[in-house]
């Protein structure tokens, strides 16, 4: 077994345990913290797959910024003190059924891949992280320039939206 495989096996156990912990923990704040652990292990998976940029984005954006907002919303609503809400009677079987469908489908997606297009799907064969990120940078700033610029417009619109919806104009009554 290669060291990468061992790392993967250990971390996948951690990731699964953290995901289960997130689901069953009664306190939403603990759930959020379990999710942080899960995000971080997934970031290492991206590294193993040779995608250092995604790994970094996963840590800074998901485990960092987005979790801050999650925790904030939990604390804003005081959700950590709420009694568990009503559960639909068919919720559990439905969730399990859908999860099985998703699992079967993911397994199929992996198996159905033609061996011949394996070369397309491997993200990078760069020797180190800097090279991998250089490959990505070249793609992002040449072929994928338009999506990159559109992203900034999207961020701008999100910013305007957040301000319009929450910021009171001076002297405005709610």
């Amino acid at each position, binding site marked *: 077994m290669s060291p990468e495989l061992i790392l993967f096996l250990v971390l996948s156990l951690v990731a699964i345990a953290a995901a289960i912990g997130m689901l069953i923990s009664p306190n939403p704040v603990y759930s959020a913290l379990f999710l942080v652990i899960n995000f971080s292990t997934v970031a290492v998976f991206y590294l193993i797959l040779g995608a250092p940029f995604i790994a970094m984005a996963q840590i800074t954006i998901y485990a960092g910024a987005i979790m801050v907002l999650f925790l904030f919303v939990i604390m804003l609503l005081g959700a950590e003190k709420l009694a568990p809400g009503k559960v639909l009677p068919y919720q559990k079987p439905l969730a399990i059924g859908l999860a099985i469908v998703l699992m079967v489908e993911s397994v199929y997606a992996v198996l159905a891949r033609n061996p011949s297009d394996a070369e*397309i799907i491997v993200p990078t064969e760069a020797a180190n992280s800097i090279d991998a990120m250089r490959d990505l940078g070249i793609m992002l700033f040449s072929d994928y320039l*338009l999506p990159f610029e*559109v992203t900034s*417009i999207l961020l701008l*619109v999100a910013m305007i939206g957040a301000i*319009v*919806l929450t910021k009171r104009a001076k002297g405005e009554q709610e």
Partner: protein
Amino acid sequence: MPPINFNDIEVLLPLIILVIWACLLLLVDLFIPKKHKWLTALLAAFGLALTLGFTLSQLGSESNGFCATGKPSICMVVLDGFSVLVNALLLLTGLLGVALAYGYLKRMGIERGEYYTLMLFSISGMMLMAQASDLIIVFLALELLSLPLYVLSAFARSNSDSQEAGLKYFLLGAFSSGFILYGIALVYGATGSTSLSQIFEIASVGTSSLLLTIGAALILVGLGFKVAAVPFHMWTPDVYQGAPTPVTAFMTAGAKIAGFAALLRVFGSAFPNLSEDITPILWALSAATMIVGNLLAIAQTNIKRMLAYSSIAHTGYILMAFVPYGNPEVAPVSIAAGLFYLFAYTITNFGAWGVVIALEQKESKGLQISDYAGLRRKYPVLAGAMTVFMFSLIGFPPTLGMVGKFYLFRAVLSGGYTGLAIIGVVTSLVSAFYYLRVVVNMYMFAGEPKTDNEFWLRFTIAGAALVTVVFSLVPQGLFAWASRAVLKLF
């Protein structure tokens, strides 16, 4: 080698101008005092008109933009007759949207300059959608057009219905974006590309792959949410009822046009090979949407809710045009008919919503169908215009709606989908019941409707009524344009 050149800019020129205009408007609006927000509206309209001019100057040119280095066939965006026609239609929608919004926002006390900026951004997303030739762009365009609409739905912040509309639309919209994104991921997994032309090539050589079909189906589900097709329509009545009325008018037309443009781009250029699987699904979606939309509209007493269900029903009629999309003999005619129907629906719809806006009072008053009683006696012109719009929505002559339905049913029949055409005709007859109820209320009963004298609103209503009637007498030119526009797609 520079990664972009002037051709790339040229392909997207109207869009780029609109985005720059929107950014500048956002900043300029900061310095326009609250009393003079008419200036923001005027500037927004001017920007839309300018962009419309540039769009029309692109008529007849065809090009690709933002292509991969060394591979000129793999491109991010495309400029063709279809995109020009759809963009022009979208910009028209925007102009009508500004005209309807100005007086309303002031009357309801929710006037803020961001309304127009957000609308411009939404339209730029829709235009990008019409030009997309890569699934990544499709997704980004979808988000760019949806985000401002979520915010606009909740624009009347002190009104809890508006808040609810914004939240509902946002949650279900995000959910449907998830479907589309997942579908795109599966398609990428199956073909190794996100470029629509590449997907088509790879899919046409290999044996049909289940993964690709599932991906396409998920994209269809997501777009079904966006255009409000049954059974993905649950959010529609609440959102359309709760959102400020001009926003609803803009959404029913703009989001539909963009959604159908995406449907056509994605399925028409990437998945024609899957038509054996997809066509029956589209058939069922279209039939269900027509039936459910029209039947549920009957039970409504609130005009906004009724028009929301009517909008769902019309989604069904337009979806009809896409059913034979994989058949290169029928598809151009039926898609052209679909485009014509979109135009007819846009004009009629804006007119009808204009009348609703004219009669709406503060705190959601004046929105019951019974509030329209006595309109003929007090405001005969308004009542006449509303009658024209209701007739057009049913499909009575001499209105655009009739011509649209005629082209549509003819195309569907020539494709051999007799059952669908029969459902279309029968549901149209059913729809007469609830549209005519408005007319009966206006003409037969006594009441005291109230409306303010707002020039642009009146102007839009009168113009829409005029176009609805006049263009129905000379529809050939427009239909010929639509036919030319889609010819190269198949």
